[in-house]
C-alpha cells in the first residue's frame, strides 16, 4: 500500500450561517484548502463529499454532483457519502483507500452540513432519522432518549454522578474558548450546564450537540507527492472502520460499544502503537456520556474510570492526553456530516504546529474517533507528524 498524506485544509467557522447556502459553504472551504496548497481545482482527481441532511433539510440529493459542479469540477470523480455522524471520517477512509491503492493520486474530502434551517423539532426528527425509522417513527422515541438510557446505565453500573460526566462539556468549552472556528468559543461552568434544560432525563441541553452549519475540506495525496510539492503535511497512518448492531435492544450490553473497541484495537495494532503513545485525541462526544465512554473504550483508562480521567485534568491541553483540543462536538460544534473532517483538520493543525493557543506540546500522533448511531459505525483515523 502507498503512503497517504494530508497536505492542506480549509474550513469555515462552525456557526449558524444564515447568509450562506450549502453550496457557498462548500465552495468557501474547498477554495481555502486549494489556496493554502497553491493548487487549482483542476489538479484534483476527484472529491468525496460527506453530508447527512441535505436531502431532508434542503431537499437536495445528488449532493457530490451538485457541489463538484459548483466548483467547476464537472468532469471529475465525485461521490456522496452518508453514514450519519461518521460520514466525514468515512469519506476520509474511502479517499485513503483510493490513494493508498493507486486509484487516484490527489483528492479532496469535504464535509458539509447546514442544520440551522430546521426547527428544533425537525432537528430532533432528523437526528433520530439515523436509526431505523420503519420501526421508530410513530413512537415518540428520540435519539436523546436512547442516549439517556445509555447514560443512566453508566451512572448506575459505575456508581457515578452526573456532575462528573458533565465535566466532559466543561472541558470542551474550555478548549473552544481560544478556537476561532468554534461555534461556542466560551467557557461554561458546571453549574450552568447542570442547570440547563433537560432534553431527555438526565441529559441536559448543554451536554449535547446543537444544530450547526459548517464546511471542512482536506486535500489528500500520495506521501511522495506531498514531499514533491514541498507542502507541510501529515501522514494518515491508518483508517479503520468497524460496525455494531444499530438497535440498542439487540446489543448484549448498552455499554459494550464493540465497534469502537474493535476499530481502536485494529488502529493501534496496524500502526504498532499503544494508547499511551497518542499525543492527543479528538473523540465523538455527541453527548457528554458518549465522550466519557469513548475515553474508556479507546483504552485511555479502564472501565468506569472515564470520569476520574476527566477530573485528573490530564485531558486538558497541558495534560498527558489532551482530548478535543478545539472543543469537540459540544463546543467547536457538530455539523453532522462534516464532523470527521473537522477532526482531521484539527489533527493537521496540531501536527503541523499550527494550532495557535490550542497547540499541544510535542504533538506526534493524533487519533480521531467518529461514530454514527451510538457507535454502530465507528471510524478511527490515526495521523502522524512527518519528519
Amino acid at each position, binding site marked *: 500500500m502507498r503512503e497517504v498524506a494530508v497536505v492542506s485544509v480549509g474550513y469555515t467557522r462552525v456557526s449558524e450561517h444564515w447568509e450562506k447556502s450549502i453550496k457557498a459553504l462548500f465552495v468557501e472551504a474547498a477554495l481555502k484548502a486549494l489556496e493554502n496548497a497553491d493548487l487549482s481545482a483542476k489538479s484534483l482527481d476527484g472529491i468525496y463529499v460527506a453530508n447527512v441532511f441535505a436531502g431532508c433539510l434542503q431537499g437536495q440529493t445528488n449532493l457530490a454532483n451538485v457541489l463538484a459542479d459548483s466548483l467547476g469540477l464537472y468532469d471529475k470523480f465525485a461521490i456522496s457519502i452518508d453514514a450519519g455522524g461518521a460520514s466525514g471520517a468515512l469519506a476520509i477512509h474511502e479517499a485513503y483507500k483510493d490513494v493508498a491503492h493507486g486509484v487516484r493520486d490527489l483528492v479532496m474530502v469535504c464535509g458539509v452540513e447546514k442544520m440551522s434551517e430546521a426547527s*428544533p423539532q425537525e432537528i430532533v426528527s432528523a437526528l433520530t432519522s439515523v436509526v431505523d425509522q420503519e420501526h421508530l417513527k*410513530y413512537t415518540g*422515541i428520540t435519539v436523546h432518549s436512547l442516549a439517556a438510557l445509555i447514560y443512566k446505565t453508566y451512572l448506575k453500573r459505575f456508581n457515578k454522578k452526573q456532575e462528573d460526566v458533565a465535566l466532559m462539556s466543561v472541558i470542551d468549552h474550555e478548549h473552544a474558548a481560544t478556537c476561532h472556528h468554534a461555534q461556542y468559543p466560551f467557557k461554561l461552568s458546571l453549574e450552568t450546564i447542570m442547570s440547563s434544560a433537560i432534553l431527555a432525563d438526565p441529559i441536559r441541553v448543554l451536554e449535547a450537540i446543537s444544530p450547526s452549519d459548517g464546511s471542512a475540506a482536506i486535500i489528500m495525496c500520495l506521501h511522495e507527492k506531498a514531499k514533491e510539492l514541498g507542502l507541510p503535511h501529515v501522514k494518515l497512518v491508518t483508517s479503520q472502520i468497524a460496525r455494531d448492531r444499530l438497535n440498542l435492544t439487540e446489543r448484549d450490553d448498552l455499554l459494550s460499544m464493540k465497534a469502537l473497541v474493535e476499530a481502536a484495537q485494529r488502529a493501534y495494532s496496524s500502526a504498532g502503537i499503544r494508547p499511551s503513545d497518542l499525543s492527543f485525541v479528538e473523540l465523538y462526544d455527541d453527548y457528554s456520556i458518549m465522550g466519557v465512554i469513548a475515553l474508556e473504550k479507546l483504552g485511555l483508562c479502564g472501565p468506569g474510570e472515564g470520569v476520574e480521567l476527566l477530573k485528573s485534568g490530564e485531558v486538558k491541553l497541558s495534560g498527558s492526553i489532551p482530548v478535543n483540543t478545539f472543543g469537540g462536538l459540544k463546543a467547536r460544534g457538530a455539523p453532522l456530516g462534516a464532523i470527521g473532517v473537522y477532526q482531521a483538520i484539527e489533527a493537521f493543525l496540531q501536527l503541523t504546529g499550527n494550532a495557535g493557543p490550542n497547540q499541544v506540546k510535542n504533538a506526534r500522533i493524533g487519533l480521531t474517533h467518529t461514530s454514527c448511531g451510538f457507535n454502530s459505525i465507528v471510524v478511527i483515523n490515526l495521523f502522524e507528524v512527518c519528519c
Partner: protein
Amino acid sequence: MATSAYWRTRIQRYRLMGNKCSSCNKVFFPPRLVCPHCGSVKLDECKLPEKGRLVDYTVVYSAPKGYETVIPYVIGLVELENGVKVVAPITDVDVDEVKEGMEVELTIRKLPEQLEGGMICYTYKFRPVIK
C-alpha cells in the same frame, strides 16, 4: 411516514408482533428480514409476551414534530417475559411515579402525530400492571 408504510407496520405496531427464526429459534422485535445469527431468511411471525419489566426509562422534554404537545413523556426499556427487549413509550403513570423494575403490560394508544389527511395513528405502549 407514508400512509402505506404506517399500514404495513400495523401488525407489529398494534399487536407487538415480532418474528422468530425457524432455524435457530431467535426471536426479534422489530421483525427482521434476515436472521443476523444464522443468516436464515425463514422467519415466522411470533407474538411477543404482553408483560415485562421496566429495566430503565427516561423522561423526554425535547420532542420531535407532533409530540411537543405531550411533553414530558416517558420512554422506557422494557424486557419482556421471553427476554426480548423493546424501547417503547410508557403510559398511564405520572412521570414522578415511574420506577425501575416496575411490572408493565402492553396497551395500544393513540399518538399525537397524524398521517396526511388526519388519519389517527396508534402504537404499542406499556403501562404499569395493576395488581
